[in-house]
């Protein structure tokens, strides 16, 4: 496994019981690049992300994350992850939860305080309210905020835009752009094709657990006119007569 890749997967198969969620998937991401994962519901996007993070054990295949095995706690120091359905502990306030995560990731107390302050401001998080009193969208903000703590080398965001209001989406996009400029790597799974097109340099399209296509965003746009057309063509539903 090469060092300039943040992760590499080879012929990976993930199953839940007898049901196969991902089959013979080979995918990799170079450092400093952003990968957008597209696919209809049940395509295996979330399962692929979980396999990268070591949350599920693949039945077959090999995965290397930052040169080590997936799920290694040392690697989580360098990874920020926002699951699609994640809820922080509800008895804490947002700053307390961010502080909990930060204490594991940032050793310098002043730096920790500064980063938490920035994120609380960016995501407009209430200071005193317990998370149990938050709306779904507010909880989403806390989950997203914690991913940026400690300047991770890899961000894994599963449907990050779900439940966010448009202003927050713009703020998040700007923050991700800054993160990419600083040399970060990103894996971004979403149903919002336009957002993936704006954010990611490489796009992978999955269907029923198989990889249909992995190409640069510019290549897909030049070939199909837009990511929307490329997606529709690959998943088999024609729009404007495009076929792969």
């Amino acid at each position, binding site marked *: 496994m090469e060092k300039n890749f943040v992760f590499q997967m080879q012929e990976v198969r993930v199953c*839940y019981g007898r*049901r196969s*969620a991902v089959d013979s998937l080979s995918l990799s991401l170079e450092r400093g690049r952003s990968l957008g994962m597209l696919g209809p*519901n*049940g395509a*295996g*996007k*979330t*399962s692929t992300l*979980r396999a990268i*993070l*070591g*949350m*599920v*054990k693949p039945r077959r295949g090999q995965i290397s994350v930052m040169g080590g095995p997936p*799920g290694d*706690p*040392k*690697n*989580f*120091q360098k*990874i920020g*992850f926002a*699951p*699609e*359905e*994640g*809820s*922080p*502990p509800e*008895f*804490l306030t947002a700053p*307390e939860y961010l502080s*909990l*995560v930060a*204490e*594991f*990731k940032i050793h310098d107390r002043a730096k920790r305080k500064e980063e938490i302050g920035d994120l609380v401001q960016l995501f407009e998080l209430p200071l005193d309210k*317990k998370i149990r009193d938050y709306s779904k969208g507010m909880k989403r903000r806390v*989950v997203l905020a*914690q991913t940026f703590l400690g300047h991770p080398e890899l961000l894994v965001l599963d449907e990050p835009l779900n439940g966010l209001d448009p202003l927050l989406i713009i703020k998040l996009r700007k923050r991700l752009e800054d993160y990419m400029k600083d040399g970060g790597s990103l894996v971004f799974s979403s149903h919002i094709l336009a957002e993936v097109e704006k954010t990611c340099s490489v796009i992978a399209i999955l269907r029923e657990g198989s990889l249909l296509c992995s190409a640069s965003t510019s290549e897909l746009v030049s070939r199909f006119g837009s990511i929307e057309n490329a997606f529709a063509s690959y998943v088999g539903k024609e729009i404007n007569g495009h076929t792969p």
Partner: protein
Amino acid sequence: MGTLLKQNFRHVLRTRVLLFALALSFFVQWAGLQSLKNFTLHLEGDLGSFFLGRSNFGEREGIFLALFLHLFTGTFLSAVYGIWVVPYLHQGDRSQLTFTLPISKWKFPLGYGVTMLGLLFLLHLVMFATFGFVFGFRAFMSLAVPWKVIAVCLVVETLAFMTLMFAFACSAMAFGQIPTFFIGVFSFFSLQLAAVLFRLNLEKLVEFESGFLEWSRFIYNKLPPMGELVFDLGTQFSNPTWNDKNIWLWLVWLSVFASIFRLTLRYPRLTRRSEG
């Protein structure tokens, strides 16, 4: 580790588990000890002087009763902490976020163990404080029981509660909260029943197939000595000899359940709806 402990204590404080456990412990201890004391006075006043000349119940019985009642409050705390508090961060929507924290998974059982020790320490304090309120704090100066006996009883109880807490947590992680409650009750009564059968030699009154009894006794002797707790306390009070067999057994089961709990953290406990 400090961060994890801080989070654990916030959890038990803010969910009011600690407050409820301490209040319940105080109430159970106070009601039990006050009843014992009233019964003592009643015997002294009406019957005691006639039959006994003095009461049979005093501080010695009081501290035994306190340690006996402690079994119920401690088991209650172990159940609540093990079934609801410990799995909280590792199940459902929270599990993925907890899984990706950059810490060794061993630190979780260690953190929960230390937190439980802290809670038990507070529970022990409540027990002694209630005893002091009922019998007077001067009673501690003239206890007819060596402090070593009380210390051994507390060590055995502490080990038992820690083991139970991890056993409940393992079961809750594997089968869920409600089934664990029923599994716990069933196991508790089975072990108590087995202890009564074997300790009081009641098995001689019932006919069993040959070999079944030896086999059952062999298995029982290897299981967590839950049913032995009351007998262990009684033995310490009647004949304070150091029998460390059950202490070792508790230690072995504590290690076993803590290790199983660690294994349950190998992958996050995902909900079926999120298997996409």
